[in-house]
């Protein structure tokens, strides 16, 4: 049996996971998302990534961004390296796409603030 803490929501359920990946028994979860999380954690752990991107605007030197889904955990530092090589030159809105298909994950990097257009 493996124990893991589900990170899907602030409840942070302590999951007890038994069995092989195709036939998992998960107990301790307060909702069905716990089982999905346990399965993904054992087969292909994924995370959302939140960070900032440099901008060309002195009033807001960085723009907060995030992935619009989850990317494989082992690609997080590759994604960071790519994001940190960029400089944003246009006053992009909240929700606007900053990078399409970040490091071939099929996931986009989107802006999470109107900081560049509100000033």
């Amino acid at each position, binding site marked *: 049996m493996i124990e*893991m*803490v*589900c*990170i899907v*929501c*602030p409840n*942070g359920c*302590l999951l007890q996971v038994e069995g092989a990946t195709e036939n998992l028994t998960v107990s301790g979860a*307060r909702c069905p998302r716990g089982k999905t999380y346990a399965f993904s954690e054992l087969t292909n752990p994924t*995370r*959302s*990534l*939140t*960070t*900032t991107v*440099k901008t060309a605007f002195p009033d807001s*030197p*960085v723009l*907060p*961004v*995030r992935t619009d889904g989850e990317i494989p*955990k082992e690609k*997080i*530092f590759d994604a*960071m390296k790519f994001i*940190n090589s960029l400089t944003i030159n246009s006053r992009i809105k*909240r929700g606007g796409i900053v990078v399409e298909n970040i490091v071939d994950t099929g996931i986009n990097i989107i802006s*999470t*603030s*109107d*900081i560049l257009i*509100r000033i």
Partner: protein
Amino acid sequence: MNSSYDVVVIGGGPAGVAAAVAAEKSGARVFLIEREARLGGILKQCIHDGFGLLRFGEKLSGPEYVERYIDMLSGTGIAVSVLTFVTGIKKLTDDGYAISIVNREGASTIITKSIVIATGCRERTAKQVFIHGTRPAGVFTAGNAQYYVNILGKMPTKKCVILGSGDIGLIMARRLTLEGAVVEGVYEVKNSPSGLTRNIVQCLHDFNIPLHLSHTVTRVFGESRLTAVEICKVNEKMQPIKGTERIVDCDALILSVGLIPENEVVYDLNIPIDPKTKGLVVDQSFMTDMKGIFSCGNALHVNDLVDYVSEGAEIAGKNAAEYIMAERKLIKLDAQKNILYIVPQQLDISDAAKLCDVKLYFRSSEDFDNAVLTIDVDGKEFFKKKYAHLRPPEMESLNIDFSNCGLKADSKISFDISRRTK
């Protein structure tokens, strides 16, 4: 310039904005005061996600969450004044208040019937945790480091030690690691972490950052810039154990050692403060002991989820708008020893309509598995609820209907937690 409003909200973070929107919706003329250049409060720099799961059913970043509320201001008649400081609040002889403010247009006075205090909280600093040694640059609070990285785009450290396992410290451990810094370890003086378990997992375990419980920083070294810190194990009384000292080379010490509600703006009014929450004492409409003054958000008690801040602020804003000079009848909510605190601390029983759906927030005073929360009214069990786990860092909330339990002016309402026997 002198002007008058029904409700003045002090503080333009998530609590203040939600309170202002709710007060306006209930028909009040509202004035919202923010001392920074932009609304949004601390969420401007909380770029990580996890906000809004309860409120919007989505996992949003801090800026996304608060900007959704800021968007609600447009099209309303709410007057917003940024870069504005409150320098004093005076009680007028005929119910109401005079608020002195200073901004780019100079000094002026605002007259209002009701005030919502939404001034948030502050971080404990190095001075409050008594670390010996020199006073070099490189000692930051976690929020301060977060401001450098997420707002200014500057890295405050190449290799650091984090003292305290509060959520912001854990979040910053991950953030600094992502940006290429080395976080040597997170040290916590207590024997259990203060942050949410999921943050221990996704911020520390994911990045192999060690968490050392029952450890503290006892000394800092360095002249102009921090060069090292001394780490010590502590005993069960949290006193450093001689002989366990270890020196860690680093260029920064980041502190995540707790948050304290900020209520300086009302100190002169001498409104009672709860020694446990360090916020003002309120009833279920979030009104303090001073008529017409409401409190919400982290200024009231430090919340672990902004979703709860918005919810409480909306109750405060609505009640500030509906506030009338009716006589209140307050009874105390009594927290027994297994309860760290309850907010509100008292109940106004003058209006039965306000007893039907009372929102309560509480924390247990220690870790409980298989616990039962009981509420007794006048010695009789009135309500109970089972919990699989109760932990002090994880706030719980309840909606209770107190309208049918025959509350009188001398009623006693008492809260406790007991372990469930199997």
